[in-house]
C-alpha cells in the first residue's frame, strides 16, 4: 500500500549520488560530442574588470525541465539555441543538485537566498532569509532601481525582499509581474484570457486573485516608459507569458539598465496538465527566449561586454521510471531526475566552451554571484563556485 514504487528507484543518499553522477556524465558526454566543448580543468571564471561595473542576469529555465527533453541525446532537438549558440560561449556545470523543497516558488526563493527555504509554496510570503538582492544592494550601497525581478505569477510578488531583520525592508529588489501589467492593460475588455492569467500550473486549484491597477500603470509608464496602448499592442503579438517577460526585461534594460536582473521563466510548467507536446513546445520556446535575451544583452551598450548571464532550471521533473510519479508531468517524488539539473554561465568573466562536473548545489548560486559582484552572502548555506575561480 504505502509503497507504490517497490521495484524501482532509491532515494538513499548513495543511490542519489550515483544517479546524479549518471545524469551528469550523460550531459557531459553529450555536450562534448555535440557542442565541441572541453572538460573544465581551470576555473570557469576570469577577471572581467571591476565588480562595480559588472552586470548579472539570472534566468531560471522554468519551471523544471528534464534531461530527456533537453541535454540527453533524445532531447537535443528541443534546445538548438542553447546548444549551438550559447553552450560554445559558456561554462557549463553538469551537476546542480537541489536538495530542497521542489515547488517553484519555494525553490526559486531558495535559489535567491542560498538557503533551502521551507516556506509555503502556495502562499504569497517573503523568503525567510536574505535574498541576493538585499546582499547586493546593502553591501554595495546600490539604489532600489539597480535590482529587479521579473516573475511569472502572483505567488512571486514577495520574492524580492526577505523577512530578515538584518536586511529585509528597503533593501530588496523591485518586482515586476508581467501578468499584472497585462491585466491592468487589458482591463475593461470582455476578452476571455483567464487561462493566460492562471497563476500557477503546479496545481490547477491554485488561482489567487490577480490585481491590476494603479501600481501597474505606474510601473508601465514610469519604469518601462510604455504607454498602456503600446504594451497592449505588443502583448497581442506574443505567444506566451514568458515571451512577455522577456519583452519586459528588454524594456527594463533599456530604461533602467539595472545591474542585477532576475527573470523567472515559467511556461514549461504547463507540463502539469499532462500534455507532453505542450511541455516540449515550451522547452523549445524557453530555449529560444534564452538566446534572444542574450542577443538583447549584446545589442545594448549598457550590457554588452560587461554582463554575466546565468541560466539554470530551478529543478528537474520526475523520471519516467519513478513509480511514485507520472513522468514528466510533475516534480513530486524527489528522485534524482527531479533534483538534478545543470547551469550555464556565459559572458563577462566566464571561460568559453568548458564543462565542469564538480557537483554544486542550488544554494551555491548566491555566494557565487557575491564573488562575481563583490558582496558577501553571509547567511547563505551554499558556497561560492568561486573556489573554482
Amino acid at each position, binding site marked *: 500500500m*504505502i509503497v507504490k514504487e517497490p521495484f524501482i528507484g532509491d532515494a538513499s543518499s548513495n543511490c542519489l549520488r550515483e544517479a546524479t553522477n549518471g545524469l551528469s556524465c550523460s550531459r557531459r558526454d553529450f555536450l562534448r560530442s555535440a557542442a565541441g566543448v572541453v572538460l573544465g580543468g581551470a576555473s570557469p571564471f576570469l577577471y572581467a574588470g571591476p565588480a562595480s561595473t559588472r552586470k548579472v542576469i539570472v534566468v531560471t529555465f522554468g519551471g523544471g525541465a528534464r534531461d530527456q527533453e533537453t541535454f540527453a541525446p533524445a532531447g537535443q532537438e528541443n534546445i538548438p539555441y542553447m546548444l549551438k549558440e550559447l553552450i560554445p560561449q559558456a561554462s557549463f556545470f553538469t551537476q546542480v543538485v537541489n536538495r530542497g523543497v521542489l515547488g517553484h516558488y519555494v525553490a526559486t526563493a531558495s535559489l535567491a537566498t542560498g538557503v533551502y527555504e521551507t516556506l509555503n509554496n502556495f502562499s504569497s510570503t517573503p523568503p525567510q532569509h536574505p535574498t541576493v538582492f538585499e546582499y547586493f544592494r546593502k553591501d554595495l550601497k546600490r539604489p532600489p532601481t539597480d535590482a529587479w525581478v521579473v516573475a511569472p505569477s502572483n505567488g512571486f510578488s514577495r520574492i524580492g525582499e526577505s523577512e530578515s531583520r538584518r536586511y529585509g525592508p528597503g533593501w530588496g529588489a523591485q518586482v515586476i509581474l508581467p501578468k499584472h501589467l497585462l491585466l491592468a492593460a487589458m482591463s475593461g475588455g470582455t476578452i476571455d484570457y483567464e487561462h493566460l492569467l492562471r497563476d500557477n500550473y503546479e496545481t490547477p*486549484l491554485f488561482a489567487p486573485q490577480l490585481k491590476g491597477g494603479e501600481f501597474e500603470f505606474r510601473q508601465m509608464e514610469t519604469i518601462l516608459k510604455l504607454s498602456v496602448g503600446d504594451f497592449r499592442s505588443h502583448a497581442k503579438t506574443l505567444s506566451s507569458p514568458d515571451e512577455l517577460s522577456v519583452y519586459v526585461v528588454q524594456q527594463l534594460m533599456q530604461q533602467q539598465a539595472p545591474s542585477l536582473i532576475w527573470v523567472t521563466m515559467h511556461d514549461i510548467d504547463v507540463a502539469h496538465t499532462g500534455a*507532453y507536446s505542450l511541455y516540449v513546445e515550451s522547452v523549445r520556446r524557453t530555449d529560444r527566449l534564452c538566446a534572444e535575451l542574450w542577443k538583447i544583452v549584446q545589442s545594448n551598450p549598457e550590457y554588452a561586454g560587461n554582463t554575466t548571464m546565468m541560466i539554470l532550471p530551478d529543478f528537474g521533473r520526475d523520471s*519516467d521510471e519513478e513509480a511514485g510519479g507520472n513522468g514528466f508531468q510533475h516534480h513530486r517524488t524527489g528522485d534524482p531526475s527531479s533534483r538534478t539539473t545543470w547551469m550555464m554561465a556565459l559572458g563577462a568573466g566566464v571561460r568559453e566552451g568548458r564543462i565542469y562536473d564538480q557537483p554544486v548545489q542550488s544554494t551555491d548560486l548566491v555566494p557565487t554571484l557575491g564573488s562575481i559582484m563583490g558582496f558577501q552572502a553571509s547567511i547563505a548555506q551554499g558556497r561560492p563556485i568561486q573556489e573554482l575561480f
Partner: protein
Amino acid sequence: MLPRDLKPEQFRTYPPEARKLAVNNLRTLQQLPLSFLPNLLSEIIELDYKFPVERQRISKEIAMLGSLAPAQMHEWFGSFRDLSLSIKLEHLDWLNQPAQFVEQLSAHLWSTHQLDAFRKAAKEYGNRLQAAVAPDQPVIARLGIAIIGQGLDAYDGRLFRDLREHGTFFSHINPENGIQQLMKAVAARAQAHPVPYAHWYVEGGHVVEHGPMLTHVSYQALEAKRLALLNKMNAEIKRPGMGPVELRTILAALQPADVGFDSQEDVVLNHFQLKLLTEGSGTQVFSTTFVQWTAREALRRAQPLTLLVRFGPRQRQRPMNELLSNIDSHSEPDLVGSLVDADMGAYYNWINQQRLPGAEYSSFIAWFEGSSRAVALGPPFARGATSSATATLEELASWAVG
C-alpha cells in the same frame, strides 16, 4: 491522538467493510507508527469502493502485519519511528481524514528534509512486504493496447521512439478494420476469462462498439460530470480564504452523486472515475491526459489482464496573442499535439503495465490508428527490431498473446 489510543467505536464513520476490517485488526493498527498508519488507513477507509484485487491485497497486508512478532514489528517500522513528526500532525484528524493527513505529512517531510529518509523506509517496507506476501500471478499473460492518432490522417514524424527499443516496429501493418480486430481480440479474452474489472476499454474520443464484458471508461461520456466538477471548483476558488489545501480537502470529500453519477450504477467504477477527475491533474480539460491517467490508475489499482486504450484528440491550447485578440477557436482540436501526447502516453502505459506481476510474460501493442505503423513488445517480439512483414492487427494481437 496516537495509534495506540485507537478504539473500535472510533471507526463508526467508516463504511461497513472498512470498519469491519479495521476493528477486526485493531491490535495490529495500534502498533503502527503515526508516520505509517494513516497511509494504510487511507486505503482501508476506501475499501468498500475498491477493486477486488485491491481488497485482497489490503487484507493480506494487514493479516501479514498481524502475524509479526514484536521484534519483527520493531525491525519493520524502526525507520518510520525515527522520523520526527510535529505536534500539529498528531492533532490532525488522521483517523477520519487519513488522505489529508498524508498530504500534510508529505509537506512536513519535505520542509524538514526527511523525505529521503521516508522514501528509504517506504522502499524497505515495500521490499519486505513483497517478500512476505508474494503477489498473485495473473491467470493469463497481460495484454496492453494503445491506439493513438484518432482523427489524424497522416503524420510524417517519428513515432514510438521510446517503445521501439523494447520491441519490434512493424512498418507494414494492414490497417483495415484494425480497431474492430483489436476489439474482437479484447472481447474474446474477456469472454474466456470473465474476471470482474479484468478487461478494460478506455476511450478518449468517439466510442466504438465493444464487448459488454469490458469495463468501459470514456472521456466524452463523463462530460457532464467534468463540467459539474469544474463549476464546483470555480465556485470554491472564488470563496475568500480558499487555497489549494482547502480545495483539495473539499474535493476529497466529494461523493460520486455530487457531480451527477448515478448511484444505481457500478459504485466501484463511479468512485474510480470520480477520483480520476478530482485527483488527476489536467484530466478535467485534456482528453489525452485523461486517458493516460485512467490507464495508469487502472493498472495500478485494478491490475487488469487486458487494457485497450484509444487516445482521442484534445482541445487546442490557445496562444497568448489569440486569447488577447479574442479569436474564437476554442473547440478546434490539436490533432498533431494529441498524437505526440498519446505517443508518450502509450509509453507510460507500457511502463505501468510492466510494474505488475507477470511482467515477463506481458505483451503490449501500440498502433497509429489507420496507418501501417505499429510496435509490439513482449516475449514473442525481438527488442529493437524492425519488421517489414505485412500483418493485420488481428495477427499482431494473436502473436502478442501467443
